[in-house]
């Protein structure tokens, strides 16, 4: 993989399927990799990597502030705001920070120039190292509504480092996930062997198809009995990159916040194979769809 620079996004329709397990271990096994945790609402990757030499910086958005001396109460800002983040009550303009989308319209269009903007911190970016893995996490402050500005910011790191970048996506298929896979070269969909698993896999499958991304599936927590997610993959002719068996040893390693490939030779092999498989797929893609 020397010299190739690829971005792999790991996603699943839902949390708890093993996205972070796959993303963390893939990043840990690849040399000179970057791990980016885009699940800014519940970032967990750093709990495994325990990165050192941490650098932190705040992420803020712009929120309007009113100069009461200049405001004439014309309400044009209130009328303009599509998000109802402004209200004129008792001869005073009120700003509801939480629902403001920071579009800047109110201050742009205030006829009296009574509105300006201030920075409001909504979260933090944490950048550190765990062995040779660069670990980037975005952590949204509790009580904030949207982590999209944080995701945008942390994805910039994907272009700054060499070789492999693994993006641990937020759950679901909403705007935050799209933001995370937009620039990915390859998507890994992680699926659980349950009825829920199939339903959720179906959704992210639609999403990667919509975005025309090359992808493959990792079946996680596989047990002896029937695997509805595997049946789905066979029916839809979806490439299965690997199967991770349900295993108490892995469960314990994982629940204790440890990285499987650093603890167990068995899992070193499992994820090494997965990495090779993905690399082959990406190289194949660049030949077929350059």
């Amino acid at each position, binding site marked *: 993989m020397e010299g190739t620079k690829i971005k792999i996004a790991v996603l699943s*329709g*839902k*949390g*708890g*399927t093993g996205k*972070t397990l796959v993303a963390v271990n893939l990043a840990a096994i690849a040399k000179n990799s970057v791990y980016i945790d885009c699940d800014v*609402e*519940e970032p*967990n990757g750093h*709990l*495994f990597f325990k990165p050192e030499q941490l650098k932190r910086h705040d992420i803020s958005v*712009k929120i309007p502030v009113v100069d009461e001396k200049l405001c004439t109460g014309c309400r044009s800002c209130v009328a*303009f705001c*599509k*998000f109802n983040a402004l209200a004129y009550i008792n001869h005073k303009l009120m700003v509801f920070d939480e629902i403001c*989308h*920071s*579009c*800047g*319209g109110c201050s*742009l*269009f205030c006829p009296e120039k009574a509105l300006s903007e201030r920075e409001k911190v909504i979260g933090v970016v944490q950048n550190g190292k765990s062995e040779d893995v660069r670990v980037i996490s975005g952590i*949204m402050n*509790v*009580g*904030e*509504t*949207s*982590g999209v500005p944080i995701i945008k910011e942390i994805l910039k790191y994907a272009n700054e480092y060499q070789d492999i970048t693994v993006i641990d996506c*937020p*759950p*679901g*298929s*909403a*705007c935050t*996930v*799209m933001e995370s896979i937009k620039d990915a070269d390859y998507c890994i969909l992680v699926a*659980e*062997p*349950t*009825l*829920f698993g199939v*339903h*959720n896999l179906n*959704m992210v499958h*639609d*999403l990667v198809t*919509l975005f025309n991304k090359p992808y493959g599936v990792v079946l996680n927590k596989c*047990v002896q*009995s*029937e695997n*509805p997610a595997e049946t789905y993959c066979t029916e839809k002719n979806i490439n299965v990159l690997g199967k991770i068996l349900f295993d*108490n040893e892995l*469960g*314990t390693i*994982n*629940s*204790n*916040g440890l990285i499987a490939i650093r603890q167990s030779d068995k899992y070193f092999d499992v994820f090494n194979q997965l990495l090779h498989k993905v690399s082959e797929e990406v190289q194949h893609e660049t030949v077929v769809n350059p």
Partner: protein
Amino acid sequence: MKQLLILSGKGGTGKTTMATAFIKLSSATAYADCDVDAPNLHLLMHQSAKAIESDYFGMPKAEINSQICVQCDLCRENCRFDAINFDDGYHVDPFVCEGCGVCEELCPVGAVSLKPEKAGDLMLYKEDVVFSRAQLKMGSGTSGMLVTEVKKSMKSAAEDAEFAIIDGSPGIGCPVIASLSGVDMVLIVAEPSISGIRDMERIIETARKFQARIAVCTNKFDTNIEIAESIEAFCKKNNLPFVGRVPFDLEAVEAINKGNSIIDSDSTSGFATRVVYKRTMELLSK
């Protein structure tokens, strides 16, 4: 109507499994799935009748009429969401546009207009019981507003219901905050892992910010007993009622794959869930 919301901070902890069991045990006549992004409750709560479907319109999206556009670039320069691109002309990326209307307002020739866009489907089942759910369109934002709609349609369809159960959405953001509003109590389902504790702490902090009453239970508690115990210790220290532990149970997975609830058979997880249910309901009635 008393409302119990089930949350976990993260998906996969067993919110829906718990919600299904609670709905069956309480014979609730009203329930809703607030995970509009990846709803699962309907997979276990089978409905014989067809849902009444309605379109959900989120924020409108900007559209640029290239016939009128004079390519002044004002819209692109001022779009905070980088939703406007220029190639052979100006185009709006509907996935990124938040419908704020800055471009429309700025355009000197009136080439930009906001057009309503369907952002999801609302589904309401209304037979003996009321079940409200929704599906957000792929890649749409505004999930919080859709969650509010789901709850609203449940409430108005089941005005007389005394009790409702709401399966929450994962995370701590907009949809969760929307699902929190107006509920009487939140049951948090926590998983005994380092990640699980962190997720639990963040969801508790969020719920507290919105002044919700909280109870906590653990699911799959025996997958890491040490951490499960520290979750209980955390609850004790923070004065949060702990309502029980549900063990990991392969029978539960099998039950769910058959489309059943874990309380439908005599499983260890089913039994433990009954205990959690009883204690939660006692707290709720206080």
